[in-house]
């Protein structure tokens, strides 16, 4: 939600954020279904830990520039006020259209 891709101007993340398709348990269950069936529980747990270590953080997204800045939580207020002040004269354009997105 509210990602850079849908034109959010500034994206911050806490160091504790987890930005991924799904949680480690679910993802490991899908990616290693065959291997898990063949091994015991400790194998699965090791894979979950490995996945969490690698992906359950904001840094994969930050490496891509999807996140502008990973911030220390204590600076949330000044960061937001500074960003809003930067954007107060923001201009953007959309194509001319007949109607907006359809009502759901």
């Amino acid at each position: 939600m509210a990602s850079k891709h849908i034109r959010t101007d500034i994206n911050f993340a806490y160091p504790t954020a987890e930005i991924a398709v799904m949680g480690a348990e679910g993802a490991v269950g899908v990616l290693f279904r065959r291997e898990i069936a063949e091994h015991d529980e400790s194998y699965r747990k090791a894979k979950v830990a490995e996945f969490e270590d690698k992906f359950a953080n904001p840094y994969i997204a930050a490496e891509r520039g999807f996140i502008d800045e990973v911030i220390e939580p204590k600076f949330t207020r000044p960061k937001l006020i500074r960003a809003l002040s930067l954007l107060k004269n923001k201009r953007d354009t959309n194509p001319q259209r007949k109607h907006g997105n359809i009502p759901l």
Partner: protein
Amino acid sequence: MKPESKVKSKIAQLKERSAAAEEGGGLKRLEKQRASGKMTARERIDFFLDDGTFEEFDKFVVHRSQDFGLEKERYPGDGVVTGHGLVDGREVFVFAQDFTVFGVSLSETHAEKICKIMDLAMKVGAPVIGLNDSGGARIQEGVVSLGGYADIFLRNTLASGVVPQISCILGPCAGGAVYSPAITDFNVMVKDTSYMFITGPDVIKTVTHEDVTKDELGGAMTHNAKSGVAHFAADSDEHALRITRELLSFIPSNNLDDPPFVATSDPSDRADEALNTIVPESANQPYDIRDIIHGVVDEAYFFEVQEHFAPNIVIGFARLGGRSVGIVANQPAFLAGVLDIDIRTILRLL
């Protein structure tokens, strides 16, 4: 090597690469897709477009992922066939997801291919038709795959009201794969083979302890009759594609064009005696509004939209004197035609 044989070998190489790309995830998987009563991605495009008019883009695109062994598994085209072609002589853009490649999970490059044709469609003012058959995000790619979805969503919202966007759901579509079709203008689903849900019955069972079948949760009739997300329920892939072709004949290619004019032999001064007697004398007596519509429009032909949803109101397209018209009608034959919340469906048509 002689210069001409060098050229020959390069042309042979192109043909080889091209043939390999057309195999998608392999002949064995393509056969499996056919055996389950479904067409393959390329068969769908060929059936949908006027014969021999498909121009393909990005046939050799492969994903860029380096994780989970994906780097050893690359299929040219990356699970989606994209390009443009003609429907009744009019230009349209089309993408068809190929279930034989990674269960057609959406990768960064897969999304880039779709975005490319959407951008071009908005520039030239032509409809975008999505032939969807996707399991969702490519988990191995993580946030990059999700970013790809968001790129598509942004274009869905920007293109809305600029060019028509039509989705055919031709297989089990789950997770990220269903948000985009849900915000396009029209959705065509196939009974018994297509599904739209955020997550399948297994996860519902785990989370809410409810037993629900795939059909109840997100089958063609659930979305046609209950949620109103879908507008047409087709009997087969072929039927869904024929409906989409016909739908296009009633709508303009963009916000500045007119819909196609279709000459009719139905005289414009034709008076229909039957119309004088269809509406009953008593206001309490129901009748079928479709009888009136049929008596009025060209050749009595009414192309109904959302036939199964909110039966107290009837909507669809027809032609009057060759010009396409949208019809919104109260239906006295159901709930005495009173309007309730489900008439939000007409807002879509308007």
